[in-house]
């Protein structure tokens, strides 16, 4: 049959689907800008140790607070370290920690949210009240407590950040689940006698996945800001490791006469956050979550 050929390509591989989504994202100017910034940062994080022109921890009192020059593109800081080198290296820790942190947040937040949405009733009530209770605690306070008790190592920061940023995802995942839970295909699966696990895996996750992924991407940028705040307060990365939050914190007092030492990390941090936000936005639109862009028919 001829029609056979027409529908053959309908089932695409996961990679082809991903590629299609990325192309749709890049077809929008905001998406293209966001994606380029994000990709630039990721590539930079990988190659920066090899292209850094100076040693990031080489202290030289004679070079203190030099203005930008041909040798030191972004100038030097109060200890005479090259700001350019430290800026391009400064996003590595933050990116790594927050990336894995958001993955953890996505996993536990998403699964718990879906589960609560599906079972409902008392379990849902109790879990959601606990989540509400955690939401009412200022996260930075709780983070400071955890960090001061357990230290600032990566093994502590990733799960801690992942936990605190997952609470919001629980709510989103639960709401998304409520949207599909009343649909007849879930009722049908229940009437057939599928287990809760099978219903979550087969029927619910494919329908709420997109909404949760977009929420996760948004959380990533928030977490980045949160992590930089921790470093700024001195609870994130310890010196001399280069980190934007830490660099801003160190150079902020000298801002009036050595603005370069503070501007470079600020640009680095904010451009990454803007990049992630724009990408998440374009991602949502490419997945068709934003209703205003849907075809009219």
């Amino acid at each position, binding site marked *: *049959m001829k*029609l*056979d050929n*027409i*529908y*053959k390509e*309908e*089932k695409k591989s996961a990679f082809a689907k991903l590629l299609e989504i990325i192309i749709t994202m890049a077809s929008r100017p905001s998406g293209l800008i966001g994606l380029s910034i994000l990709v630039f940062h990721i590539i930079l994080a990988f190659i920066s140790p090899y292209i850094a022109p100076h040693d990031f921890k080489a202290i030289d009192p004679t070079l203190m607070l030099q203005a930008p020059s041909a040798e030191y593109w972004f100038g030097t800081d109060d200890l005479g370290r090259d700001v350019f080198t430290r800026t391009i290296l400064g996003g590595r820790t933050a990116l790594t920690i927050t990336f894995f942190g958001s993955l953890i947040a996505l996993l536990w937040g998403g699964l718990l949210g879906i589960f609560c949405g599906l079972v409902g009733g008392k379990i849902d009530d109790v879990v959601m009240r606990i989540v509400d209770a955690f939401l009412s605690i200022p996260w930075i306070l709780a983070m400071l407590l955890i960090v001061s008790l357990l230290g600032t190592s990566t093994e502590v920061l990733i799960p801690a950040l992942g936990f605190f940023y997952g609470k919001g995802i629980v709510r989103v995942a639960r709401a998304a689940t409520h949207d599909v839970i009343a*649909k*007849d*295909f879930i*009722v*049908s*699966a*229940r*009437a*057939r*006698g*599928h287990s809760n696990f099978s219903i979550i895996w*087969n*029927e619910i996750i*494919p*329908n709420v996945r997109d909404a949760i992924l977009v929420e996760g991407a948004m959380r990533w940028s928030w977490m980045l800001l949160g992590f930089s705040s921790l470093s700024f307060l001195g609870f994130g990365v310890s010196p001399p490791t280069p980190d934007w939050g830490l660099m801003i914190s160190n150079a902020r007092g000298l801002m009036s006469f050595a603005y370069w030492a503070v501007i470079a990390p600020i640009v680095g941090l904010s451009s990454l956050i803007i990049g992630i936000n724009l990408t998440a936005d374009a991602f949502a639109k490419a997945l068709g979550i934003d209703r205003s862009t849907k*075809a*009219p*028919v």
Partner: protein
Amino acid sequence: MTDIIQKVKNLSIGFRSKKGEEILILKNISTNIKKGETVGIVGESGSGKSTLALAMMGYVKHGLYTVGGECEFNSSNLLKMKSKDLEKIRGRKIAMIPQNAGQALTPNLKIGYQIDEALQLHSDLDERQREKKISELLNKVRLPSPETIALRYPHELSGGQQQRVAVAMALAGTPDLLLLDEPTTGLDVTTQAHVLELLNFIAKDTGTSMVYVSHDLGAIAQVSDRIIVMYSGEIVLEGPSRDILKRPIHPYTHGLLKSIPKLSLAGLPDSMPGSQPQPGTIQSGCSFFDRCNFSDENCKNNSPKLEFLKDLNTSVRCFNYEKLVKENQVSQTVNKIKNKSQDKEILNLSEVSISYAKQKLLDQIFNRISDDNPTVKDININIKKGETIALVGESGSGKSTILKSIAGLLRTKDGLIKFDKNRNLSSDLKERDPNDLRIIQLIFQNPDESLNPNHTVEEIIAQPLKLYFGLKGEELKKNIIDLLQKVRLGEFYTSRYPRQLSGGEKQRVAVARAFAAKPDIILCDEVTSALDVSVQAAVLNLLQQLKEDFGTTYIFVSHDLAVVRAISDRVAVLYQGRLCEVGPSNDVYKFPSHPYTEVLLGAVLEPDPDIKPKLVAEDIVEERPPEKGCSFQGRCSRIVGDICKKEIPPWQLTDSGNAIRCHIPIKELQKEQF
């Protein structure tokens, strides 16, 4: 009568696809609406009828744009008008009544306030006059005691009353043209008949022109003077309502009228093949070509023009309409269904009660439901193997509730549900074993909701096969293809997603999924009401065929009495969760004996201008069943006395085996037939 109020000239509306092509939703529409006339626009979903109606008030939906042509009202083109000028026309000159009044009314404002708002905008009356006008309008749409209704909120009214309020609001600006977009589609049969009657009255009383958009030929037949039939964005037939319904000269309308089940005919009507093409897929030729019984080579290559026939006063878009002119009347052939039910009983419901009441703490501890007046009570039905039994009634009659209990989705309060005389199914899902779940399968009303949008057809049908029979690999694939072929879908459907299928195809996939479990009983919950008329008959025929092949028993829930008549062997009429009448469908329809059955049958709309609905009872909506006595006492027009209010009526048997629950003796009941 000759002055034209709205002139649509060569109107084309379209959108741009992702690839940048221009796709037309409306193609070159030209028509006139005259003063005081009611025009019905009929067509399937996607035929462009709503887009045309909206364009008539100068509105084009977001994403669409006007490609060419104009909509002229008072000799100015609405589609080119500035929004400031349009504001003066909308509401004042042209008003719209939406499909779902419940959603169109603001929920937190009183009815009176909302009508007053319309009056302030569209009239120059002062406060006193407006006060008077509000009760006048509410009176006109026949709402009881306008003073109290005006102070209520929309949610305190029933669907029919909300629709009446919407009519009152539209009339507030004394418009010259009233656009109605499926105004009765979401309503119960009885309410629908009442609202249509009201619209008829208003059209006569005020002399307003109306444009009535609907997919329902039955409703259109009751109100319109002239009918426009749309197909795939074109007008295919336009003419006086009586001629179109009695002697349709376009093959589409002809086929459509043939495929609609009618009350007077037992058995399934012929179905129309195929489905309406998607916008933008037709390159050349007639858009109806591949579904047409009268087509030839000419139709394939050339698109016909809309031709005005003077002697018939009708416009038609067909090369071969002459063949149909000769045929004159729509002769409906029906395929009589053979009653294959055996004497063996397969499902017994005895004294079943179901309650939605929330359990009190003490009841929760003892795991019981205490509710003296449950939603569904005293249901006794014995279902024979291989028969089709239909549960009918208005919304809130408990028909879906009973289905849910049989499927185990809802716990019963009392009573027994027994399968095959020995297996107890009174428990809910968790307590049933997989085999008990397998023997009963569900088909839902809306296939958009019952199929997971992120699964392919293959994955959808594989679910029950994997769950119940543990099939894998080649065998699974073979079974899926086999099932697809049984529901007349080809192998190539396996990799498609539900959004790539038409409504009828989706419902076929849902049918295939239900049959995949090899069930003994299939519960059909309004399976055709979300489908287009032309597809409905095909799905019914398929269900009938499958039943004959597999000997399955159907429990069929529907509010559409004509559909029920076509497919069922036996009918059970429900009101407020209580049975009123149970009997072979021929007898229930021929001798409408229970007063409620009479009301239901009287309200059915047939696509025939000569058959008018009979409005026996008021369209009141009762919230809860009465505590004592007959369930229908609140609306019954034949109450015999106090006995109806105090005692539950006894079951009476007619000679043909029809059981009726009424205090009026059988002989007297049969006297007043129509």
